[in-house]
């Protein structure tokens, strides 16, 4: 999908559909299978961490309320969609979409969203580099190394925030700004959006309900 507005809408619509019902989750999963780069996105190290968390919560949920399997299916699909959204994102997209959506008032939220995405990318790079360093020292990641490693994450983010603030100040930023976003949606983008709406509709109003209403 070339148009980030439609991509973001599709991700939100499918996530809501997956959260509402198992049928919605199943359809959203089928849709995910059609997305380009779907398998590349699940190779990220963070995917394993989030997937493990879902498994733990699902098991607890199954033993306490009996809804563990349903929770597992729905949250796994949402995780897959989120990973796809993160992989498909290109720098500047949230900025453009925010300004398109909210006009001048969308400038700040867009800027914050872009900075947050950049911070996420930096965290991913940091964690990969730290793993390299630990392997070289033959030090396992344990409690004794956890404190300095987390400290490093935090300090790096603070340093980057300082640098970013300096950069914005040097460029004369105080608040607000202008941006003229342009988008070039293709036929496939519109088709993807319509399919996502259909899936959301089916998740909200199950097919059997529609037939009952028709009777």
């Amino acid at each position, binding site marked *: 999908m070339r148009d980030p507005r439609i991509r973001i809408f599709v991700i939100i619509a499918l996530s809501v559909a997956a959260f509402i019902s198992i049928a919605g989750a199943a359809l959203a999963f089928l849709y995910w299978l059609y997305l380009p780069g779907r398998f590349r996105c699940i190779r990220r190290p963070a995917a394993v961490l989030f997937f493990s968390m879902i498994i733990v919560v699902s098991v607890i949920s199954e033993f306490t309320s009996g809804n563990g399997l349903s929770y597992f299916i729905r949250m796994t699909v949402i995780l897959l969609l989120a990973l796809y959204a993160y992989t498909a994102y290109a720098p500047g997209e949230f900025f453009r979409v925010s300004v398109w959506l909210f006009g001048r008032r969308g400038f700040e939220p867009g800027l914050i969203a872009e900075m947050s995405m950049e911070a996420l990318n930096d965290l991913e790079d*940091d964690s990969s*580099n*730290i793993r*390299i*360093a*630990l*392997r*070289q*020292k033959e*030090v396992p990641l344990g409690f004794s*190394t956890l*404190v*300095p*490693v987390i*400290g*490093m994450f935090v*300090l*790096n983010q603070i340093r980057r925030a300082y640098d970013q603030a300096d950069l914005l100040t040097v460029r004369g930023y105080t608040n607000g700004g202008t941006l003229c976003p342009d988008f070039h949606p293709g036929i496939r983008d519109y088709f993807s959006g319509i399919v996502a709406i259909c899936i959301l509709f089916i998740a909200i109003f199950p097919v059997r309900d529609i037939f009952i209403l028709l009777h």
Partner: protein
Amino acid sequence: MPLTFEDVSYTRDQFRFTANGIFEEGVHLVSGKVGSGKSTLALIASGLVRPGAGVVHRNQIRKSLLSMQFPEYHTTGITLQEEVRSWGLDPEVLLESTRLSGRAKQDISVLSRGELKRLHLGCVLSCEADLLILDEPFSALDCREKRVICRRIAERSHGIVIICTHEQTWLPPVDFIWEMQNGSLISCGRVPGAITRWSLAPRHIRELVEQGLVPGNISPEAVMGATCGTRE
């Protein structure tokens, strides 16, 4: 103990890295612009990243060590002495040699980027390794520290040292020069002959070469020697 790159390639998004060549024992300089693939070369050479195609032969290289550009990534200790110990070194000796003595119990986060880099390089250069890869070792250092690092690299008596940098002035004496150009590794050969084939050479060295005064090496001392030859 050569390190051999045999038809190695690696692709990430739009970037493609390719390498063919043999890194013999000695000091190798890999120069190149930012984003040309120097760090990728460092990661593949150290065995931390597997190439998409081709083979990297590490004959008789038992231990390899990579120093990344940002020293924070290597930090696993809370205090300076813990950090030095994590490298298997004696904190007293190491902190003395890096002019950080008396600060052994200080929190490592209070160090400036330059001090941390000094400590980190002190640790790395004190470790025994058959293959030592230094990715941008001169970043965040002042001229005095750069000179110290150059001297310590020159003092290493065995193994392969690969220095990936775009530093223009403070360079140690090297045996071989390589270039990274648009993701491709290019050999310039052995020094001093390599200096004439070094297209990314710093301007002051290039000007000397154009005048027919090829320095014996690329260290500031060797370049100064050639420059003095001009004046004579």
